[in-house]
């Protein structure tokens, strides 16, 4: 469903700071795949997700989503089909607006915006149902401004907003990294729940090796702008952190250097 072909992204091209962030990547993602992405600092994980999401133009290659070439589509147009959650829990919601107003934008996402009322009885019912699922009591606080919520609550809301319109693709960029451990676990469980329930094709960057192995059906390891391992199904089931690190060292010819990742091992 997602086909990335010969993708190349170079920052500061033609300057002494030139940096090949993505070096000719090919990747085919199948319908319903839940892929975790790991890699050392500067491996190009975020750049890959940002390229797919249309945040910046790429130097070379094509990105095809459900037979549609989205390589040159702008960020907001891509977002009509792609849900995203960022590391910063403040990035995905509008703080001065209420929970119901934020959710309303997410629910309207699949339709074109119009001069219809942003809120309605029917819409509120849908919202309550969704909010009950994430089990944070937010369904009773529809008119609370989002800025009054905790980081974890805001990230849960963002995750709900990213999935409620049933996107073709969900991109998660270390979306639990800025949360405290207990909240992070909650958000991870919620992620698995929402993704499975709606069978959303997902790419998730994580710095947590254990999560990378436990979650999803496929694991990709990136290094120096390339995909060095693509581990699927049964092979992934048998993976351990030690094995993964060893595999990395063989290909990379050196120790793994992601401080946060090693700390979380």
């Amino acid at each position, binding site marked *: 469903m997602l086909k990335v072909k010969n993708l190349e992204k170079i920052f500061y091209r033609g300057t002494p700071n030139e940096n090949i962030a993505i070096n000719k990547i090919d990747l085919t993602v199948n319908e319903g795949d839940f892929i975790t992405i790991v890699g050392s600092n500067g491996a190009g994980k975020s750049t890959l997700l940002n390229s797919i999401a249309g945040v910046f133009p790429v130097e070379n290659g094509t990105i095809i989503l459900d037979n549609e070439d989205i390589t040159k589509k702008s960020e907001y147009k891509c*977002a009509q089909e792609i849900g995203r959650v960022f590391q910063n829990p403040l990035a995905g919601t509008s703080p001065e607006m209420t929970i119901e107003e934020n959710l309303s*934008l997410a629910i309207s996402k699949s339709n074109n915006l119009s001069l219809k009322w942003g809120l309605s009885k029917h819409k509120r019912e849908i919202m309550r149902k969704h909010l009950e699922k994430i089990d944070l009591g937010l369904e009773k606080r529809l008119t609370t401004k989002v800025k009054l919520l905790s980081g974890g609550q805001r990230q849960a809301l963002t995750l709900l907003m990213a999935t409620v319109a049933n996107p073709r693709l969900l991109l998660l960029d270390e979306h639990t990294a800025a949360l405290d451990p207990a909240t992070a676990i909650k958000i991870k469980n919620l992620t698995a729940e929402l993704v499975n329930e709606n069978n959303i094709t997902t790419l998730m960057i994580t710095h947590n090796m254990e999560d990378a192995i436990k979650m999803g059906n496929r694991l990709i390891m990136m290094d120096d702008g390339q995909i060095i391992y693509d581990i699927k199904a049964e092979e992934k089931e048998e993976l351990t952190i030690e094995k993964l690190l060893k595999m990395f060292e063989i290909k990379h010819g050196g120790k793994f250097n992601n401080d946060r990742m090693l700390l979380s091992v």
Partner: protein
Amino acid sequence: MNLSFAITSLEQGLAFGIMALGVFISFRILDFADLTVDGSLPLGAAVSARLLTMGMNPFLSLGAAIIAGGFAGAITGFLNTKLKIAPLLSGILTMTSLYSINLRVMGRPNIPLIGKDTIFSFIRDLGVPYPWNNLLLLIVIIVAVKLVLDAFLNTQIGFALRATGDNPQMIRSMGISTNSMKMLGLIISNALVALSGALVGQYQGFADVNMGVGTIVAGLASVIIGEVVIGERSIMIATMGVIIGSILYRFSISIALNLGLAASDLKLLTAILVIIFLSTPRIKKALR
């Protein structure tokens, strides 16, 4: 301060209140410091006054002013979203161009409207007694504008507009173009400012090419006074606050003038007032 003085302040507060609502949209909702308003206020007055001298219906001339103001906002939006010129500079460029355009529209620096049909002469001729004639008309207009604006800001597009100023990344993630939203917000904002200019022109009986100087600061003062006095819990309360803020602002100016302040010092006073209000949160924090 006698009664007629109070009524004048109230009327001015209402007429300029629509401008303050426009500034509220750009400054608070879009988070876009838009200086176009210094040009679009006299633009509204100029278009309306010129059309009045040509014998147009005064109410229709308000509509023409709204459209002209919308165009001015669209130019600033184009400069910012398409040509990527910084918000402040985009507004200044449009404002500066509008000075020439306003002179072209009027054909001279000042158009007196004494003896011409205006919306205020219309209501007086209906036999509504002073002081209710002007007041009633202005209240009806501003309440209508406020209600339409409140309703709009609670539609799907209105939500998107509000979120654009609050968190542009979020609005892009929702598949909405922040550029379109900025454009829309600037058009609405400057359309309102031009409407206000047309009303002020008809109210004071002339349009003048220099009448826009300091509009943005007066608008900001109204918005901020409204936030301090009324608050901003919801959109309906916030827009109410802006109107009350505008009225209080005009009252404080009348009082200052009554106390013997020279009219030429008013702009300085307003600027200082805005500085004090804008810096209060920081000063409070520092003192804690």
